[in-house]
């Protein structure tokens, strides 16, 4: 049911390639249809042992005692693992890129923070023996009050979910309880808007539900290493995580995977590899740790829930003049990838539209549920739902057709986005036009004439506006959440140097490029440190000349509301180009 429209953007593309662009059969298809494709579990090992974990039945409880004696004596049991057996029993998934503090144990130490948290692992000769022995582990708990609602969790006095983050939020930049986006002056624009519309949206968690559950098999290799067959979505990610937790040099781990029975983000977390390797180390035998379906459904870490509030200022002619988004990612009990999702979400706001005043506050809150992780559409899916339902409401309020309303507000080449970078290579308008045509949804001639190539990057669309700043939401100071604005960043100000051009090595035959290859501008010459001149950086090249003037005139520039410019606050220390997030995202503790 796919149709290729080659006529659009034809002058940006040649269609002379030999095999790129052709519907060649997949390399893996013969293996799939003959059942010869080997997934991680399709490997035979002599003396294979099976690992099953005992999980917490409580959302929040202190562990009073653990008695594994009966399980250890049970038939077929080779080893029972407890928290003390894990060499480095605290990790955070993004510690490998220095993002956030270690906050999650492989096996719970003195308290459990969600239903399903692993507490004890049983390794036995067969799955049946491991399951039978699992029933013999006795754990005494003292239940604690749980918190399940993100906004309840952020109130002072809420139960502390994750001791590493005692205020129940991820800490951004060692300063704030959320990630900010500030572009222009949304409050002033709301005051000027003809219509202000605010709504609340909620996405429940979503499970990846791949048909292959998470799992791995770890086995001692002949050369004092361990081979690991895994379904990890990031092979070196998982290798690095495992090496850290079991405290082995990374070259003593040999990870094999690459053929995975569906992932959708649910196989990024290394849920099984560390304990499987530890089991192999401690038993000297191959150890298989595979989640069963119920574990996968309930404890295999979902796409986290998000609660999103959107407030928009709309003019009667259909132009959106301000958008403010406040949202809450439900991280569950530990951080995993939620902290990064909020950053990605921040860069995505306000969606594929040009709006002169935009602000957002994205929070990551800890609750007593299974930690959430990445999923297809990471950081975007829920906010796109909220934004696009909101857009439907706005179109209705403006009395405009939803398609026409999208085209009117669409971003175009050359527009400055609220994260202060210029939009390039845009094509939203064309997608709307083509979908409308195919769906027999009539558009006005004016809407049909619009183009992503024309009308962007002009006037206010090319400017970084004067921006109101605040210090709301300081870590440990909930009373600061309602604090007044602290000043205004002058128009055009930038604090983060532009990223260098992509780094590519190995292109030694620069002369004999075979076919069309990516076009790379030369890397900029190293300049002095510090913010580049704003105007030069923020003003894009003029859009391509066009015979047809844009139908929609550029929105009027916002009235100058800024007080006399004050000196911008000092930019936070940054280490550009270095592989360290710690200056931005908090100190990593190991």
């Amino acid at each position, binding site marked *: 049911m796919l149709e290729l429209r080659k006529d659009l953007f034809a002058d940006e593309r040649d269609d002379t390639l030999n095999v790129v662009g052709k519907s060649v059969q997949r390399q893996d298809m013969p293996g*799939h*249809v003959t*059942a010869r494709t080997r997934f991680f*579990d399709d490997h035979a090992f002599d003396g294979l042992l099976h690992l099953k974990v005992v999980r917490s039945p409580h959302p929040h409880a202190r562990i009073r005692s653990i008695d594994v004696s009966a399980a250890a004596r049970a038939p077929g049991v080779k080893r029972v693992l407890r928290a003390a057996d894990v060499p480095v029993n605290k990790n955070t998934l993004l510690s490998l890129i220095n993002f956030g503090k270690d906050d999650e144990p492989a096996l719970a130490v003195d308290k459990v923070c969600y239903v399903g948290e692993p507490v004890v692992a049983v390794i036995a000769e067969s799955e*049946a023996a491991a399951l039978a022995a699992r029933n013999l582990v006795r754990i005494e708990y003292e239940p604690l009050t749980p918190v399940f609602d993100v906004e309840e969790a952020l109130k002072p006095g809420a139960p502390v979910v994750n001791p590493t983050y005692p205020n129940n939020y991820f800490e951004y930049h060692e300063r704030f309880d959320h990630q900010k986006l500030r572009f222009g002056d949304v409050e002033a624009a709301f005051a000027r808007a003809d219509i202000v519309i605010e709504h609340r949206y909620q996405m429940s968690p979503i499970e990846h539900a791949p*048909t292959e559950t998470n799992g791995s098999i770890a086995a001692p290799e002949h050369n004092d290493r361990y081979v690991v067959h895994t379904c990890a979505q990031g092979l070196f990610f998982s290798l690095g995580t495992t090496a850290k937790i079991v405290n082995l040099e990374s070259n003593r781990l040999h990870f094999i995977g690459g053929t995975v029975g569906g992932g959708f983000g649910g196989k990024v977390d290394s849920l099984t590899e560390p304990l499987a390797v530890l089991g192999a180390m401690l038993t000297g035998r191959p150890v298989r740790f595979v989640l069963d379906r119920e574990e996968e459904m309930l404890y295999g870490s979902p796409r986290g829930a998000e609660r999103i509030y959107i407030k928009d200022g709309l003019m009667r002619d259909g132009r959106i003049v301000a958008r403010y988004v406040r949202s809450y990612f439900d991280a569950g009990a530990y951080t995993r990838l939620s902290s990064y999702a909020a950053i990605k979400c921040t860069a995505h706001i306000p969606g594929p539209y040009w709006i002169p005043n935009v602000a957002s506050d994205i929070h990551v809150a800890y609750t007593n549920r299974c930690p959430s992780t990445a999923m297809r559409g990471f950081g975007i899916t829920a906010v796109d739902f909220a934004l696009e339902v909101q857009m439907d409401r706005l179109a209705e309020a403006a009395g405009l057709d939803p398609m026409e309303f999208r085209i009117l507000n669409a971003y175009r080449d050359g527009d400055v986005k609220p994260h202060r970078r210029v939009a390039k290579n845009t094509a939203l308008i064309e997608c709307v036009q083509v979908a409308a045509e195919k769906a027999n949804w009539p558009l006005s001639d004016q809407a049909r004439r619009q183009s992503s190539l024309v009308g962007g990057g002009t006037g206010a669309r090319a400017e970084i506006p004067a921006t109101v700043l605040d210090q709301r939401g300081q870590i440990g100071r909930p009373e600061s959440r309602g604090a007044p604005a602290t000043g205004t960043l002058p128009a055009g100000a930038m604090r983060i140097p532009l990223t260098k051009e992509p780094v590519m090595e190995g292109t030694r035959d620069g002369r004999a490029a075979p076919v069309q290859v990516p076009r790379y501008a030369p890397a900029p010459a190293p300049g002095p440190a510090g913010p580049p001149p704003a105007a030069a950086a923020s003003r894009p090249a003029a859009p391509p000349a066009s015979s047809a003037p844009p139908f929609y005139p550029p929105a009027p520039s916002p009235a100058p509301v800024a007080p006399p410019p004050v000196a911008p606050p000092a930019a936070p220390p940054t280490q550009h180009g270095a592989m360290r997030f710690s200056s931005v995202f908090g100190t990593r503790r190991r």
Partner: protein
Amino acid sequence: MAKLPVQLRLNGADRATFVDPAEPLLTTLRRGLGDFAPKYGCGQGTCGVCTVLVDGEPQLACLTLAVACDGRHVETASGLADGPDMHPLQTAFMAHFAAQCGFCTPGMLTAARALLAHNPHPTREEVVEAISGNICRCTGYEPIILAILAAAAAPGARRA
């Protein structure tokens, strides 16, 4: 507990192994006999990736007692091709790009094979019914349905 002997025909070949008394056929096929075509997806009978034929009828290997298959003929997706020659279902799945991750594919093929054995010219609704116990999380099912319909129209589709 003592292991029990089980003899069965697996894809036409006589095989024998020893099993735990309550062992599911899936474990026996994969760990005992080395046929990795049927997969573990749930152990609950809710996903279909372990679908096999027992005496020609589709069953879920995860819910079938291995000892109950003593003396019976078990067929998996490993036995679908005739040596190097692919079954029309296999070539149709390839032509329709009816697999992505490939994990559900052996079970889908087996379910489709059971359908075509009884009903060589199924309607779309009958195809949908035949794969209704098989979860696919990648394809949205449409290419699988089209592939099975195409295979039914191909010569040799009822080949066992």
